[in-house]
C-alpha cells in the first residue's frame, strides 16, 4: 500500500536548508494500522504529507498503491487525494458555515455524487461514528471530540484506501482522545481500514498494530504491539 525508499526532504528557506527527512524506508500493507511517534520536529508531519501526496520528496521514491505519486501532475495528485486518501488534521479543519452533515458529504460532492446520495452516505457515516444526532449542528456547536469525529467521517466518506491522521487528539482531553483513537481501532478491525496515525502519546500510539519512532528525520526504531 505504502512504500517509501530512501526518502529525503530538504526545505530551503533562502540560504538556510532544513533536512527534515534523512532517508526513510517504510512499508505499510493494506489493513495495517501504524502509529508514528517521536519528538516534535522529528519529521512526522513531513513524512505524512509526502505519504498523503500533499508534498513531494527531495530524494528517494514514494509509491502509494504502486503508483509513483511524485510523477503525477498537480491535478492528478488532487484527484488521487480525493479518491484514495482521507485526512484528519490536527485542528479546526471543518467549514464553519456548513453543518456537520454538509461537511461530511463535501468529498462525496467533489466526487460528483448527487445530493440525495451524499446525504444518505454522510448520515450513515455519522451513525457509525456515534454522532448521528449531531448532523444539523454547526462545528462551533460541537465539542472538540465531536469535531474530530466529524473530520474522521469526512475523511472516510469516499471510502479511501488510506486514512492519515496528524495528531488528531492533540487538542482534546484524554478521555475524548482515547475515544477518537478507539474509533480508529474499530475501523481498522471492522473494515480493515489502512491507517497511519501520528501521535506523540505513547499510550495512544500503542493501540495501533505497529509503532514507528522517528528522530531527526530518520527511523529510530519500530515495534509491533
Amino acid at each position, binding site marked *: 500500500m505504502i512504500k517509501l525508499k530512501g526518502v529525503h526532504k530538504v526545505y530551503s528557506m533562502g540560504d538556510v536548508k532544513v533536512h527534515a527527512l534523512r532517508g526513510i524506508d517504510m512499508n505499510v500493507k493494506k489493513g495495517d494500522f501504524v502509529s508514528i511517534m517521536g519528538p516534535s520536529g522529528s519529521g512526522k508531519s513531513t513524512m505524512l*504529507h509526502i505519504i*498523503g501526496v*500533499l*508534498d513531494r520528496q527531495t530524494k528517494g521514491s514514494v509509491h502509494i498503491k504502486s503508483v509513483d505519486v511524485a510523477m503525477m501532475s*498537480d*491535478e492528478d495528485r*488532487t*484527484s488521487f*487525494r*480525493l*479518491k484514495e486518501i*482521507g*485526512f484528519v*488534521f490536527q*485542528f*479546526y*479543519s471543518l*467549514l*464553519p*458555515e*456548513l453543518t456537520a452533515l*454538509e461537511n461530511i458529504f*463535501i*468529498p462525496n*460532492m*467533489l*466526487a*460528483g455524487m448527487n*445530493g440525495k446520495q451524499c446525504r444518505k452516505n454522510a448520515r450513515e457515516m455519522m451513525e457509525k461514528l456515534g454522532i448521528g444526532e449531531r448532523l444539523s449542528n454547526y462545528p462551533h456547536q460541537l465539542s472538540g471530540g465531536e469535531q474530530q469525529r466529524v473530520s474522521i467521517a*469526512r*475523511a472516510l466518506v*469516499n471510502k479511501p484506501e488510506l486514512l492519515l491522521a496528524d495528531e488528531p487528539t492533540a487538542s482534546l482531553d484524554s478521555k475524548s482522545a482515547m475515544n477518537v483513537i478507539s474509533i480508529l481501532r474499530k475501523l481498522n478491525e471492522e473494515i480493515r481500514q489502512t491507517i497511519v496515525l501520528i501521535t506523540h502519546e505513547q499510550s495512544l500510539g500503542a493501540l495501533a498494530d505497529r509503532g514507528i519512532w522517528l528522530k531527526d528525520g530518520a527511523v529510530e526504531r519500530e515495534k509491533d504491539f
Partner: protein
Amino acid sequence: MRIIPFLAFKDMVRDRKIVLLVIFLLAFSYVNLTFFPAFLNGLSNTFQDEIVDTGTSHIIITPRLESNSPYLNFVSSTRKKIDLIPGVAGSSSHIGLSGTVFFEGKQTGVGITALTPSDDSHVTAIGEKILKGDYLSDGDTGEIVMGELIAGRKIEDRIGQTGGFGAATEGLGGVDVGQKVVIRFSNGVESEFRVKGISGSQGFSLVSQTIYMTAMDAEEILGIDDQASSILVRLNNKDDAARYKKLILELGLSNANIQTWSEASTFAEGLNQTFGIVIIVTTIVGIVIVMATVGIVIFINTSRKRRIIGVLKAIGMQKNHLMMVFLFESLLFGLIGTLLGAAIVYSTVYYMNIHPIVLPIGALKPVLLTSTAVNAVAILIASSLVAGYIPSRLASRQEILETIKVVE
C-alpha cells in the same frame, strides 16, 4: 459541479451582512450608471421640446444656399401637398426679417418672424407663450408681439433686486402692451407698430428674443407674395421625423433644404454630446466603485479563509473549482446588485414620469433607454467578475501546506 454554487451560497449566507452591503453598493452603482443618463435624456428632451415648439417644429424646409434666393416659392401649393400626407398635423410658413426697433430714444437690432397665426397654431406653440397682452390674429396689421428680452424692463422694476442682467439685457427699457415702437427694416422701409403682446418663456427659447408680426404685413414690407423663408411641418409623432423627411423629399420640391428637428437644431446635438461625455465619466466612476467593492470583499474573504481553502485542496478539490467558487460569488454579487438596482431605477423613473420635476423650461421626465439598462447590467457583471478574478485566482493557487499550518 454542484459543489461550486453550493459552497458559494453557504459562504454568502454566512456573511450576509457584508453580502448585503456589497449588493447595495452594486445596486447603487447600477443606479448611478442608468439613472443619470435617464435624467439627462429627460432634460435633453425638455430642451428639445422647447426648440421644437418655438423654433423648428418637427421638419423645417428652407431654401438651399445654392439657390441664392432667401425665399421658397409657391408656398401655398407646397403646403397643400404636405398637408395631404397622412400623419402630418399641419404646416406653417414663416418669413424672416431683420431690422432695428426704436423706442423712447433707445434702439436695438432684432430678428422678426412673420407668420399666419391660424396656420401656425397647429405647428408651433408660439401663441401660447404670451406673458402679457394678446397674441396676433390673422387680420392684424401694424401690430406686433415682442419678446420680453427686447421689451426689457424699466429700471425701477429692478430696484431691490440683486444681480440683474446689466445693460445688455435691458432691451428697450420696458416696452409695455399698447405702446408704439418704430421698426426700420433692413430694406429701408420704416413703419410704426403697436405692441399687442409680450412673449417669453423661461428656457433658452427664441420667443423671448424675437418680434412676431403677421405674414400679411411682412409681404407688404418686403413686396413678396406666396414666398416664405421657411415652411415648418408638424407631425403626429416627433419620432417619425426622419421617415417624413423622406416622404417630403419625394415631393420633389425645387430648391428646398429639408431637415428634421434634430438636424436643424445644432443646440440639441451639442447638448447630447456634452451629456454623452458626462455619462462616460459617471460610467467610469461606477466601474471603479464596483471593481473596488467586489475586489476588496473577495480579497478579504479569501484571506480569512486561507486555512479552509488549504483543507479543501488537501481533501481533493481542484484549484480551478475553488477559484470558481469565489468567481461565482462575484457573479452573484453582480447579478443581485443589478436586479436590485434595476428595480430601484425603473420604479423611480416610472414614478417621476407620473410626477415629473417641474423646471423653469418645462416638466422633466426621465427616459431610461433599454440599451442603457442592458449595457449597465453587462458593465456591472463584467466588472464584478474581473475584480473577483484576481483575488480568487491568487487564493486558489496558494501552497496547501502553507495554508494548513495557519492556526486561526
